């Protein structure tokens, strides 16, 4: 069964001096997030951006896929801490995504965990949607 998720954005003005807002989303989980070009293209910002939302989507999707793979291998995780860092080159696009995960998974070897993480990276739906990003890296380790 197909699942739809919608977001609504309002924008006023031109690109460089205008501003926008992610007003509402299907779930209501977040809303009224301001966006603008400065916040998207410069460091040290407190506003979100498309690239931060993509990072959030990718880290969330990857975590869920990895918990699925670990569970199927009989090692459901106690905890996974993941991050995604999206590198955006204005004028060029998204050039890299770096995934990082630390897992608390009883009874699993480092190699098996890395293998499961690699599989999750390859197969999660957001990874598939982002398959044309030139580089998607992965750093996976078990919490010692």
């Amino acid at each position: 069964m197909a699942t739809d998720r919608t977001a609504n954005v309002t924008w006023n003005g031109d690109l460089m001096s205008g501003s926008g807002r992610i007003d509402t989303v299907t779930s209501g989980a977040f809303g009224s997030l301001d966006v603008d070009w400065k916040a998207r293209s410069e460091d040290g910002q407190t506003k979100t951006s498309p690239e931060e939302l993509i990072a959030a989507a990718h880290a969330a999707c990857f975590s869920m896929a990895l918990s699925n793979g670990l569970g199927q291998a009989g090692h459901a995780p106690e905890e996974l801490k993941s991050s995604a860092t999206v590198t955006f080159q204005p004028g060029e696009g998204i050039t890299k995504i770096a995934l990082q995960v630390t897992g608390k998974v009883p009874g699993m070897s480092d190699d098996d965990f890395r293998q499961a993480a690699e599989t999750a990276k390859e197969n999660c739906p957001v990874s598939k949607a982002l398959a044309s990003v030139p580089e998607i890296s992965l750093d996976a380790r078990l919490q010692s």
Partner: protein
Amino acid sequence: MPRVQRSADVTWEGNVARGSGAITGATGAFAGLPYSLASRIEKTDGKTSPEELLAGAHAACFAMSLAGELAGAGSPVEHLDVHATVTLDQVEDGSHRIVASELLARARVKEMDAETFQRLATTASQGCPFSKLIEASGTVTVNATLEGDTDGD
């Protein structure tokens, strides 16, 4: 222009069916957003999902891209509404895929004819990095209208 990096952190506990996670953006604009398998593929129950975050990313990306195109054409947008709907579906091999992202845009722009606007809307989607990416997995459609335009002509 220098490259920029944006990060987000996720904590997940438990198996996929009954576990849950929380999502935080490094800018602090959103933090601790809960999500789960159920909120992703069934009722949202007030929780977000990767696809909802992608819908937010796509709508914001397209809005900026279209604002840039319109300004470049000498007609900065006065007001622009963009809705992005991302569809996750089960495909033949049983896995889930992001199969579509549909953009609906409605703009208030002074002195622009519908044909020029359509052309700029198409260019804006092609110029939005996320539109280009998602075409690896699914289709991107753009349905753009000018405020005050009747019958779409």
